[in-house]
């Protein structure tokens, strides 16, 4: 591999590319602005916490959130697949918001999900909301998986030092300054461990400075790769604000 010297990369683009790189153990992943994590040379794409049918779960309590969250989530996933064309997709748990989700989901959404699996080796990891992803979603199911020396699982394990990639916590970072504040979903990573942002449209986020993250990152030093409008921004944990 050689660099084309006659066409220098603009500094802004170089910064954007650097911000998107997330190393976990021996592997260099790329953070996609949608919240997916990609290993381009392996054509591998990871997402976490789709929380399909969260909207309709609220409807049972008389709160009628727009029933388009599954559709929005799947459209965003389809767009990420089109960008990266992976051969393998691993979903790190909490695909369905609750046990009743399969009964409520629009058959058209299921069909869309099945269609995007064509030609892709698709693996569902089980999560706390969906201990065993039901039949009908296609693909295969596992509890956790070792990949190139990195453990992939739903819930990060504080007892282990990694390398590990997980979801479950829905990390979000917040920055303030100049009389403004901004809260965005993010990847929280320190080289040994990476927690993926929740991919679901209604999934929301938990501030990465919350106590739940403390056992995962020694010395509270990590980088929040925050999802901006057009790219991912790498923000040191020291520059983040609590809620």
């Amino acid at each position, binding site marked *: 591999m050689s660099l084309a010297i006659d066409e220098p990369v603009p500094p802004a683009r170089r*910064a954007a590319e650097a911000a998107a790189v997330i190393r976990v153990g021996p592997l260099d992943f790329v953070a996609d602005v949608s919240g997916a994590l990609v290993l381009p040379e392996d054509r591998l794409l990871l997402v976490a916490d789709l929380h399909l049918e969260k909207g309709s779960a609220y409807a049972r309590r*008389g709160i009628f*959130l*727009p029933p388009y969250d599954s559709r929005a989530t799947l459209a965003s996933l389809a767009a990420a697949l089109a960008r990266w064309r992976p051969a393998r997709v691993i979903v790190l748990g909490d695909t369905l918001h609750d046990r009743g989700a399969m009964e409520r989901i629009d058959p058209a959404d299921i069909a869309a999900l099945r269609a995007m699996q064509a030609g892709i080796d698709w693996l569902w990891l089980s999560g706390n909301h969906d201990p065993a992803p039901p039949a009908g979603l296609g693909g295969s199911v596992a509890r956790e998986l070792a990949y190139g020396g990195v453990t992939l699982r739903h819930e990060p394990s504080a007892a282990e030092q990694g390398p590990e990639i997980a979801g479950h916590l829905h990390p979000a970072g917040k920055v303030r300054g100049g009389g403004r504040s901004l809260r965005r979903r993010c990847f929280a990573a320190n080289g040994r461990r990476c927690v993926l942002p929740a991919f679901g449209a209604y999934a929301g986020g938990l501030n990465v400075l919350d106590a739940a993250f403390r056992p995962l990152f020694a010395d509270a030093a990590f980088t929040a790769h925050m999802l901006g*409008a057009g790219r991912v*921004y790498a923000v040191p944990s020291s520059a983040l604000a609590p809620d």
Partner: protein
Amino acid sequence: MPAPADRPDAAPAALPPAFAAWFAARGWEPRPHQLELLALARAGRSVLLDAPTGAGKTLAGFLPTLVDLAGTPPAARRKGLHTLYISPLKALAVDIARNLEAPVAGMALPVAIETRTGDTPAHKRARQIERPPDILLTTPEQLALLLAHREAATLFGSLRRVVLDELHALVTSKRGDLLSLGLARLHRLAPGLTAIGLSATVREPDDLRRYLVPQAGDDAMAAHVVVRGGARADIRIMDTARRPPLAGHTALHAMREIYAAICAHRTTLVFVNTRMQAEFVFQELWRINEEGLPIALHHGSLDVGQRRKVEAAMTAGALRGVVCTSTLDLGIDWGDVDLVVNVGAPKGASRLMQRIGRSNHRLDEPSKAILVPANRFEVMECRAALDAVAAAAQDTPEPRTGALDVLAQHVLGMACAGGFAEDDLYAEVSSAAPYAWLDRGTFADVVRFVATGGYALASYDRFARIRVGRDGLWRVTNPRVAQQYRLNVGTIVEEPMLKVRLGRARRSAPGAPAAPVRGGRVLGEVEEYFAETLLPGDTFIFAGEVLRFEAIAETDVVVSRTAPGTDPKIPSYAGGKFPLSTFLAERVRGMLADPRVWRRMEGGVSDWLETQERKSMLPSRDQMLVETFPRAGRYYMVAYPFEGRLAHQTLGMLLTRRLERARLRPLGFVCTDYGLAVWGLSDIGAAVAVGRLDLPGLFSEEMLGDDLEEWLAESALMKRTFRHCAIIAGLIERRFPGQEKTGRQVTMSTDLVYDVLRRHEPDHVLLRATRSDAATGLLDLKRLAGLLSRIRGRIVHKDLDRVSPLAVSVMLEIGREAVFGEAADDLLAQAEAQLLEEALA
């Protein structure tokens, strides 16, 4: 007794002997309008009484009821409620109940009068429904709750009259929409009901006359009784030793004179436009209060107990001055006020007249008022308002188009009340004047929204909150739904607030983060969304001093005092709460264009405008001036549309987008009621000169197309508007202060909901409600559209080599008013830069 044919409004009626004797005993004579109202009531007419303060409005409103009730002994009466009185303020209802005691006790009338507010204990509420009083005084929210009660039909079946106080103030908001729907229901439950509206003079009294009676396409109107003010108000602009500054809202230059005015009068009300100004003026007056006069402070963010204490002291005549915000705008009689001082510009002529009405509650004596402009633009605005008052010109807002989110709330209430047939409720709702525009299809959309969210994807049918029964009536499916309705009723969405508390920052070890110590004095409250933006070390103005932000600890914002002379780094809300009215704006533009007028003006205005004319120019009445100039390494463009802060803010957002697209690298903008300043890294004046930028194109109405749509998709103001609509419409639950630590959770989730709904069902009824709010509310799109069409072909451009005198007044607001316009991702890029710094360190 039929009224004469040529005078449908009926001849004045005579008072019954007992009433005549009571008036005579007090040395009073019934006023003509009081008798006229009595006659109209006897003739079964609804009526709008349009009268200045001090005209005996309240007594006039209740006289027909008291005469009715006095004439029929309790045993002979139909059981139940006779008259309902609705006021915008709880305190006003309580105040009126007290005032009615005098005639009722004086004539020994067998009349039971009670109030019903949020403070009424549960057992009393229950009893009021079982055994109602003759007269019940309450608020629009309490009326909505009563109408949603299962016993509503019985309770209101006997009702003869409804009295709506301060109607002009009620009808300009969503509360007025809610009340109009309640009124439509009352008209239906009690056929033959008449309504009396009590109002200050408004621009279009016919709108209020329609509001009072059911509309059936016949343009029905209540009768109109007008009382014109007796003595002309004595208003002047305060002469001050120091001239008003070029910008700012503090009126610091006038404190000595304001204090002297307080000293020279019995009781002075000092009106200001915002809470921040109230705090500031109060502190400054105490700083120079050498005589130790009892001067108090009254505004909405103060603790309730504190406010009640001030009101009691005021009624007892124990105060010489009260610094207050619009919380005292409405008609409560707080005792013997003989002077009103209005600090800052009044923003509207009608508002000014209302405030002046607070002084001297007697019709035959002139009200006395002094206006204190806080800057030079405000000198012109005060002068314009004075002229308007002299001409008795009104600039009350246009009537509202009834909001769909309020309608949704009402529909759910009616389902709780025992069910409704869709066609019947449509007929009833569209008989309310604000909803006369409503078509059957939109109404059906709202009913479907209440039932299942009303989405094109009909997936929530089995969770429906209301459902049609076999009898064709929509009813709630579950008692829990009625419970939710009761908790959610009302149209006022409070911003979550945090307490501002003094605390010291102590460093435990060098380099360790500061650990604030709590336990200091509470200075007041700020909106949580403001506190959220602060970084430790940021300085801002609050309670009249510059404070340093230390931390947020639970529900407290911990701050410390700063050294004298510290500059505030973060703008806090120092600007006016209400935007300048269109009417006053037009008058100010007229003044600016007429040297004969401005040359005679006080407060340094003539010097200021003369210099402006020499160094740049003064636009004519229908022109808009745009100035461009460089300053300190940046390039500025300042425009003067005079359309109020909200419309300017939206304009600024759209202009910066367009400049960005033209690669003119804008960095931010700031706006006032009069103009806005945009700055950036490229020379805008030069771009115009070489034809790279076309000013008419930049300000063209096209910006209301795609640019607006794009901006609305991400606008925080739009998201906040959506959240308010979603809460009022009952899509999400209202969180009560104290029930949850903060409102943050809700804010986050409604933003996500807004994004998804906007993408998948842009025509959803809730988005229609949001857009309609945006047109007149925080984004003031309607006024912006009017502005762009007004200036088409009338932009005059001056390319200057330095800042102009007019521009100084706008640019001085940088650092005081919020600065907008930087793309959100810039903040992320700044945070990211810290990573590089760390790496290099």
